[in-house]
């Protein structure tokens, strides 16, 4: 078996790099275990973030007419007015999103406007699934799951993808791969360790004798049990080290702090996925949205500062998305309902800084919803192709023109 693997491995490398037009060397460095790997951090704002109050079109009269209560004031009109975006006229940021504004000023932040897809699906689950599967019928595996299926040949790496949170996102689920997911590092372990020293000690022999050369279900389970113990120790050791910088930002910050610690500890994980919930602001949006954006902006800023202090910022691309935007008009409960197009945000020295794309037309709506100006799969294509060095066309099941979100 080993001999045949040696025969096929060089062929795989050569043909793959020919297909991508990359020099042979760069393909070798993206093999598992080599620290120069690019990392993708996906931040999901769960529930449908209100894009219009995040990236504020203060130059639009329609915006103020349709949102008499909720609209963010134009810059200069008080404490809770929108922040300006240098170089942009009529487009600003929610004042609580100042953390992101700082990243923008540092040239490492990018806003991609008007992201959506054709025939928007306002069903509660389906629209979430569409972003996770990159398929408008929402019926496929996760797009990142397909990335793992497609990229990791041979024995899949135990922790190629890590999702924080108590539900493994569909985005990370592939045909062959399941993300490693845990709510917090402390839960990524066997609870029986707490029963006492003697039990914790006996636990170490649980995986049993590993038999080389067998590949039945028991051998597979034994290998996984051993991997589980090792990676659990690895993760907990990584997060026991104090961060290099100080952090602001609440629950999202805690998750990103964990991610930063794992990156720093040299985990060979390629994709991290974190989620912040609460964006489904059907009622009384003003206060809650402000608090959420404060968390998001501050966490992203802290995360980037930490990565920079570690010397890892060049390797890590952060992509922020939400499953849909919200309707243009406010509803009668001080909130907004499920909508369609909304911006995405990317962070890192490798992004094309600034505000990209076209803001959706505020007066030409689709039954009260924004019409999208760019398909989200173009952003996925850019990330897969140009950052992860993966076969975007196969993974997305179609050729999408990559959005110019990364520096050439």
């Amino acid at each position, binding site marked *: 078996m080993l001999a045949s693997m040696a025969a096929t491995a060089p062929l795989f490398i050569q043909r793959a790099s020919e297909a991508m037009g990359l020099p042979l060397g760069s393909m070798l460095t993206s093999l598992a275990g080599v620290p120069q790997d690019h990392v993708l951090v996906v931040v999901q704002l769960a529930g449908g973030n209100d894009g219009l109050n995040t990236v504020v079109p203060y130059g639009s009269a329609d915006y103020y007419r349709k949102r008499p209560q909720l609209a963010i004031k134009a810059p200069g009109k008080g404490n809770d007015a929108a922040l300006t975006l240098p170089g942009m006229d009529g487009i600003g940021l929610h004042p609580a999103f100042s953390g992101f504004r700082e990243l923008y000023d540092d040239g490492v932040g990018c806003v991609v406007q008007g992201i959506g897809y054709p025939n928007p699906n306002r069903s509660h689950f389906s629209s979430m699934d569409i972003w996770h599967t990159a398929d408008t019928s929402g019926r496929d595996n996760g797009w990142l799951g397909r990335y793992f299926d497609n990229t990791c040949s041979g024995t899949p790496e135990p922790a190629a993808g890590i999702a924080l949170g108590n539900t493994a996102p569909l985005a990370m689920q592939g045909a062959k791969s399941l993300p490693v997911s845990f709510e917090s590092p402390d839960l990524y372990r*066997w609870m029986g360790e707490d029963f006492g020293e003697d039990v914790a000690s006996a636990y170490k022999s649980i995986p049993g004798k590993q038999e080389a050369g067998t590949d039945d279900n028991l051998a597979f389970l034994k290998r996984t049990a051993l991997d589980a113990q090792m990676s659990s120790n690895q993760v907990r050791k990584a997060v026991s080290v104090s961060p290099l910088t100080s952090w602001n930002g609440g629950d999202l910050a805690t998750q990103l702090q964990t991610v930063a610690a794992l990156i720093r500890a040299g985990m060979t994980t390629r994709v991290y996925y974190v989620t912040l919930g609460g964006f489904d602001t059907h009622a009384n949006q003003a206060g809650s949205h402000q608090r959420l954006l404060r968390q998001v902006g501050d966490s992203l800023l802290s995360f980037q500062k930490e990565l920079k202090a570690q010397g890892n910022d060049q390797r890590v691309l952060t992509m922020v998305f939400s499953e849909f935007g919200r309707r243009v008009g406010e509803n009668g409960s001080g909130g907004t309902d499920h909508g369609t197009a909304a911006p995405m945000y990317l962070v890192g020295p490798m992004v094309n800084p600034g505000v990209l794309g076209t803001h959706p037309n505020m007066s030409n709506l689709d039954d009260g919803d924004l019409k999208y100006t760019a398909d989200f799969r173009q952003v996925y294509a850019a990330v897969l192709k140009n950052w992860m060095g993966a076969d975007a066309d196969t993974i997305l099941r179609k050729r999408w023109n990559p959005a110019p979100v990364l520096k050439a």
Partner: protein
Amino acid sequence: MPRALSPLAERDFGYWEAAHLLNRAGFGGTPTQILTLSNMGLKKAVDYLLEWERVDDPLSDGGEFRADIMQPISRDSRERRERARRDEDEKTLEQYRAARQERQRIDRRQMRSIQSWWLERLIETPRPLHEKLTLFWHGHFATGYRSVEDSWHMMLQNDMLRRNAGGNLKNDLVHNIIRDPAMIKYLNNNQNTRSAPNENLARELMELFTLGEGNGYTEDDIKGGARALTGMGYRDDAFAFNQRNHDSSAKRIFGRQGQFDGADFVELIFQRPSAAWFVPWKMHRFFVDDSTEISSDTKAAVNRMASTLKRNNWNVRPMLKELFRSKHFYDPSNRRSIIKSPVQLTVQAIRSLDTPVRSITRVNQACGLMGQELFFPPSVKGWEGGRKWINTSTLFIRNNLLVYLMTGRDPGAKAWQGSPGGWDATPLVAHLRGLNGRDEAKDIVTYLARFTLGDAPTDDRLDEWTTLAKSRGHIDNETLVHLLSLMTACPEYQLC
């Protein structure tokens, strides 16, 4: 050469064979239950499980759920909404939207209640094979709530699958599933019309439900089948045929020409050779060997299952009877070889160890975290099963679930709350206490290891556990729980 699936001799059916039968044709059991089954002998044991109508079923039929949550709004209401749209009356439209969202929220809550109801049923049923088959069909005719968004329709489907779980594959299951409101919605057959055919149901019916991908059908057959299925929709929570939408012209399917309708399409499908083979193959994966590879033993077994199924005009029980009585089923290579699904792990742990359920909501959540949320299959392909269930984090969840069931210690809880509580494991080993000339600790450890893992591991782990037990002095409940936690954390425990 012995015929494939030739029967096991009665004298070869003992305790461990009964345990294997109960694990696979059910969700395991306590030592007493296994002993009872083994005392029946092979034939009577299989009959007892298979002819479940003879067993009293005191469990509720789920009729207390609401049918009205997602029912369409009245015609008057619809007309008022249309008028509001024309007049661009945002205020009224917003009321409709808010009302719909509220109904959807309530319906999602009911869906979770139905999940809990079914889990409880799986845990308590006196008819384990009946529920296990219902679970099989639930995964086979996979239908996802995420797209159906109607918990009552999901309940109706579950009910239909349960009623027909041991019935006729063609007449009771496939003919019914194409008339099932949840399935029709899930695969868009309500949008499959003469003027605008939708191929979803036709395709999955062949690819996933009856023949298997690429097994004896072409794209043209899908097109013809889709046209045959036009007009099959639902209204008022039941199947409704819409003549106007139906394409009654001639179609060409499998080389035959005719004005086929949906029922005709099913009949044509079952004339294909692969129709006899596909469901038996899936059942063999579910009950015997979860490998996706087809070994020569598997091939012979499935071929035999297929011929028995066909010979019995698509009634599944004779095929299952032959399978559960066969030497092949009890072959050592087929014992403790299937990776337990999350539901199997959970239900088997509770039934065999007789632990409390603690919180059915938490248990339901745990199944979701392990990758199997009832009524939410990841896709129309259902749950892949096998090794797909397992990675490092789901392994921890599985192990911690056992700790939770045995102690009530919730992994999500912030602090360790004192010693294990609420479950007494001492009855399990009462018969091993105070026997003259015996090494009690060794007996207890060996017995528990055999019970949880099938065969006591012959490696150092057994010695280690015995040493631990001895060091505790008297083996009290806490020590038993600690030992069982270690054993259920072994990789072997994930197999049944």
